[in-house]
């Protein structure tokens, strides 16, 4: 394990960014989101959750797929280049890293999404343990240990230092390139990290959602959950906006659109939300015509369909972003709890 003083972090970032792109949490007019580093930006590693999850470092909100160009009546197609240089995402949390695993299940299984795969191949993740978990967090429910993030590099902030522990080959390579800035953590460092982990885990135990039960939520629950009359009540406050999906680290739906630039047509994909009334709107109309159906879809997908198709893996990681951001104060926890309550009543 290595370490660096917090005040030297700008040097560390500069060094990383010298050889590749570096994405990390940045405060722009009061909100923290992952963005590319430069000397001007205001890096913020203390805010626990970025508004958007860092998934768009691998699966951008919109990305060009190819461009059609026209000369007279001839049309040529220029595919967009795949990511071919390494980049570093610094400061992802354990839940965000788990979010990527969910995306991997979708995008890396056959047929492979080449754009995503290229980014995964070239991305190096430095994950940061959650210094002070908050009441909206429930990663523990999904078996995630936010004190011990598993990525290319794991990092902890303790006292005035940041501790840095490469876990993979990519992580080793990155660490190597930072020689000189990082110094050995030593025994005291190891000790500090252990204390930090313990402190984190102690807080996690006290979090209100940490003992949320997922009992009954699995691939087998399909019909029972789908047909529940509870949905009809639960969805009512939903405004059909896309906030939950756009801040979510695991939502992976996208739409493909064309944009006429005047000198060509760009075919690009952009995040879509199953909450939107025009989600998967086709010529025949919509396959989910009411907001109740759309609402149900999102939660059934996260908690039932996805585990059914992915060996029991839930596509929720308990980051709690939707809990914080839903304009109508709806969220996945409320859904889970409602079913629990109903079960209890039975």
């Amino acid at each position, binding site marked *: 394990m290595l370490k660096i003083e917090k005040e030297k972090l700008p040097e560390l970032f500069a060094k990383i960014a010298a050889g590749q792109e570096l994405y990390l949490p940045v405060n722009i007019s009061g909100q923290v989101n992952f963005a590319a580093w430069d000397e001007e930006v205001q890096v913020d590693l203390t805010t626990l959750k970025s508004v958007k999850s860092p998934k768009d470092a691998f699966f951008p909100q919109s990305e060009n797929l190819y461009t059609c160009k026209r000369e*007279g009546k001839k049309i040529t197609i220029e595919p967009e280049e795949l990511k071919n240089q390494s980049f570093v995402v610094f400061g992802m949390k354990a839940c965000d890293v788990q979010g990527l695993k969910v995306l991997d299940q979708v995008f890396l299984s056959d047929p492979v999404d080449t754009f995503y795969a290229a980014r995964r191949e070239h991305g190096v993740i430095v994950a940061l343990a959650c210094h002070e978990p908050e009441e909206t967090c429930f990663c523990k429910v999904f078996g995630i240990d936010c004190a011990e993030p598993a990525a290319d590099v794991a990092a902890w902030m303790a006292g005035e230092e940041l501790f840095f522990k490469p876990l993979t080959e990519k992580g080793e390579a990155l660490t190597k390139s930072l020689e000189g800035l990082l110094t050995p953590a030593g025994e005291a460092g190891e000790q500090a990290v252990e204390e930090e982990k313990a402190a984190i885990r102690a807080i996690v135990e006290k979090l209100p959602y940490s003992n949320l039960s997922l009992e009954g939520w699995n691939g087998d629950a399909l019909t029972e959950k789908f047909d529940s009359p509870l949905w009809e009540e639960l969805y009512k406050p939903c405004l059909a906006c896309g906030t939950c999906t756009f801040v979510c680290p695991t939502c992976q739906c996208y739409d493909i659109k064309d944009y*006429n630039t*005047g000198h060509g047509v760009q075919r690009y994909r952009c995040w879509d939300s199953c909450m939107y009334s025009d989600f998967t709107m086709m010529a025949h*109309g*919509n396959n989910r*015509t009411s907001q109740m159906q759309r609402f149900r879809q999102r939660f059934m997908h996260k908690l039932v369909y996805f585990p059914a198709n992915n060996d029991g893996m839930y596509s929720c990681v308990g980051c709690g972003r939707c809990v914080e951001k839903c304009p109508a104060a709806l969220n996945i926890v409320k859904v889970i709890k409602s079913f629990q309550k109903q079960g209890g009543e039975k």
Partner: protein
Amino acid sequence: MQRIGVFVCHCGSNIAATVDVEKVVEIIRQEPGVVHAEDYQYMCSEVGQAKIADAIHEKGLTGIVVCSCSPRMHETTFRKAAERAGLNPYMVEIANIREHCSWIHKDVEEATKKAVILARAAIAKVNLNAPLKPGESRVTKRALIIGGGIAGIQTALDIADAGYEVDIVEKTPSIGGRMSQLDKTFPTLDCSACILTPKMVEASAHEKITIYTYSEVEKVTGFVGDFTVDIRKKARSVDMDKCTGCGVCQEKCPSKKAPSEFNRGLSNRSAIYTPFAQAIPNVPVIDREHCLKFQKGKCGVCAKVCQAGAIDYEQKDEIVTEKYGAIVVATGFDVIKLDNYDEYAYSQSKDVITSLELERIMNAAGPTKGHLERLSDGKAPREMVFIQCVGSRCADDRGKSYCSKICCMYTAKHAMLIRDKYPDVNVTVFYIDVRTPGKNFDEFYRRAVEDFGVNYIKGQVGKVAPQPNGRLLVQASDLLDNRQIKMEADMVVLAAAIEPNPDVRKIATMLTASIDTNNFLTEAHAKLRPVESPTAGVFLSGVCQGPKDIPETVAQAGAAAVKAIGLLAKDKLLTNPCTAHSDELLCNGCSTCANVCPYGAITYEVRQVNDHGIREDRRLAVVNEALCQGCGACTVACPSGAMDLKGFSNRQILAEVDAICQ
């Protein structure tokens, strides 16, 4: 995707001289969707139109773009050509590469580039065009004439003779207009009243003509074929049905200090009056501002002397609402105010008069009973000076930029009449140019010079100054002799510029007919549609459209009548198919569109819709296509984009924007 044919017109050299037409064709041929492109000398010619028809048949075109002159010129021509070839006429779009391109640019490369872009925009639009079918609306077989001068009377007679009902609305108490104020008319020197009065009588006696005098148009709604007009009949204070026109009331009226409008204020009239002897209707009105009964509350002489009991002090303004198929504007003119022409001493001396005032002085019914005399002292003048172009042809804001057209001729008439009747009076006319185009006009002017000895001097008068001896010092320059003239005159007559009746602004606004910078009504086309206003169903007669003399006015009045008759003769009108329509799946039923519709064409109904499987009763906007005129106000007011306009749809306009900004 449409199969589009593009036709590029040379318009002789009008387009081809500045736009490389062949190059445009070559480039446009490559555009997606374009399956045919060609150029031709004159697309609007029969051969050109045949080319369009041939291409429609041979290439199976579904959309046409003609790159030519303004769509205001030949859009209809090409649409008809397409229709004859079996294509819906609304599948034709025009790229205006003449007025908006070749005529305003000099650089060939630049103009060619622009022509290509304009063509692309039209192609982009036509790609989204849909066949449209006009609806029908009814025609009310009645015409309204605003203004009862010679123009209005003639138009009314012509329309009525064709068998249609006509209403004349005249602001003053009698029809007759300016012509009734004239003494003689050029170039034949007929007595004006002698030729006008029979027409007035004919109009008033015509069974198809209703005359509203002392009345004004108050409100106009509706559209071609179906206007609804409110006419305010001002309180005359005299019962039209009872009055016998005996005139006793006017004789006995004790208030005789009101300036006579008819005599241009040169004499006074009684408070109860008919403007002139031959007035039609021969029913007086009470001028309430000058009437003692109305002002002071006592008098009532007229009521006492009226044996018919026609006087009605209680009478109130009355609003008559009537429907019309066509409206003819014939609001005429007035002479300009001369307050700003201090150098001619008009407001300083009674002996400086306008030509229209001279008409009244020369007229037997005028202030001097037809005797030529100075208004200051009643003496007969020895030396008379006429000054031309007072306020006409001015570049500054004191006068008018245009030539008033009639002054040269009436001045020659005045000079001739004076020399004829008073041979010992010297007459000098100061002119800038003498303009006498017209049948027997120049001959008329030459007679004034050659036979009547009128002294014409080229040179504008600089100054007229009243002298202590009561005469007027006229200072001018003789440009041909290069000398300055200072002469004393007894009377000076100013040929003041004429201007459209000031009321025309108000009327034009009501009719949504446009007005030019000089307040003349604009024609639909300066050359080809001179008697029609750009507003369908509104026609122009007389000086409201531009300066004219009597024969021209009468001719134009007839022309306007024919246009109106052509409209009234139809039972149905095809309505503009470019109307608004609402997408029922997007409509919120919020009423915003109805709030901005000037025609009340949008109503709401609750109807069941099937929105992708969801059946719901919804409040929905419905457009009445017969009422909708296609302005598009609703389309922008509608927040959800449910309202769209056929022929100018959101996507069509956006496609044009995209093509231009490419």
